């Protein structure tokens, strides 16, 4: 099996590997000597070096990865670009509330926005801008939401403390913020 299907097996594990695949790991998984694994890898790389291929095997971080050829980067970028231009206003508002008031539950967001937010929250979860961070110690144990690493990355923030302080443009604004905080969660201060 190994020798006949060597490069096929290698191709399969290369695709599935969650991290750059080292020669050592290949040898382990396939029950080969590292020397043999290296030969197989060379064979497979040659297969991928044929013209007409869109993929190539690249060495990275001490291992090998299956990746797209740089000359087709344009298309890959176009694919990975968002289909929609951005977030809807509703989504943006919900995201802002979650960012500034996290951790927060859906009912709490709904109380603020005055509308159901199931779908918006679902979408934000899908886009990995928010995530479930736990459950609130309240009846029904509702899920608590917070922002993700991707959220920070996207907005270029190191951490949440870097979120700009928000106030209304009038001097009353801070007051509102404080009053609401005071009312709803005595301990937290934005």
């Amino acid at each position: 099996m190994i020798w006949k299907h060597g490069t096929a097996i290698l191709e399969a594990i290369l695709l599935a590997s969650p991290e750059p695949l080292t020669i050592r790991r290949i040898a382990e998984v396939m029950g080969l000597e590292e020397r043999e694994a290296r030969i197989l890898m060379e064979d497979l790389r040659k297969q991928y070096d044929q013209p007409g291929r869109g993929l190539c095997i690249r060495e990275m971080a001490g291992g090998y990865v299956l990746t797209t050829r740089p000359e087709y980067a344009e298309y890959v970028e176009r694919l990975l670009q968002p289909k929609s231009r951005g977030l809807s206003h509703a989504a943006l508002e919900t995201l802002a509330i979650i960012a500034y008031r996290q951790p927060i539950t859906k009912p709490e967001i709904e109380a603020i926005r005055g509308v159901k937010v199931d779908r918006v929250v679902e979408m934000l979860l899908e886009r990995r801008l928010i995530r479930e961070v736990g459950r609130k110690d309240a009846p029904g144990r509702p899920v608590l939401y917070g922002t993700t690493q991707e959220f920070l990355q996207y907005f270029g923030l190191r951490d949440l403390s870097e979120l700009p302080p928000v106030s209304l443009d009038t001097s009353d604004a801070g007051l509102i913020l404080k009053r609401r905080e005071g009312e709803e969660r005595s301990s937290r201060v934005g």
Partner: protein
Amino acid sequence: MEGSGALLGRPESYTVHLANFEGPLDLLLHLIRRAEINIYDIPIAQITEQYLEIIQDLSTVDIDRASEFLVMAATLLDIKSRMLLPRPPRITEELPEEEPQDPREELVRQLVAYSQYREAAEALRELEQKMARIYTRGFFCEEVQGPPPLQGLTLEDLVRAFQEVLREEWNWREVPREEIPLREKVREISFLLSRSPGGLRFRELFTRGGSRREVVVTFLALLELIRQRRAVAVQERLFGEIWIRPAGSEPEGAISAGVQGEDQTEGGAGELPAER
């Protein structure tokens, strides 16, 4: 575990553990298969006896599941007793071809439906197992570098959005009703009504909108339309669906709770049946 089962004092050729069954229907299907009997002609006395015997084991499952098994036990006993009754003479005024109902019918229907979905579950299991041998892409570097799909949004946008939220909250507190676009809502609803001669579901009018303020506005707008005799609210059954219909389109024979189109007075609007 064995405790209650042993009380029966009858060594069974094979042991049946209640905990192994998904629920009462699962257990019943098992008994029916075991006895190799026709599901459409279940010897109910025999099956009931076996069922009751097995659920002696009830202490081995948690309370919720135990109650599910008990409910079925009651159903079986009920069917059994009804099977013993002489069949009532046929009442000819009813649907002529209808046969007297078999007490087992409902249960059989449930069992058949359940067994179909069990089969479907088996088919899904096969697919699951097939897919367990298939893997998709693991590591992919472009993905890690790329930003989440959020093209063209800046931190300022986010801040501004939150400011708007705060302002909304402020409005909510300080200006509860002044800005209500009631007239606009009246127009919207009468437009919707004009396009739905059959009427609109009362509830639909509310789920469509959203905010609490909009709920209030919608309600006020409805009252206004009813007051102006441009719409009627109809409820055909107690606790049934409330319909809002364009005035004059009310179908004959409908009993309308609350507001009738013709003899509508201003005070009548208050009688609009309240939800909940």
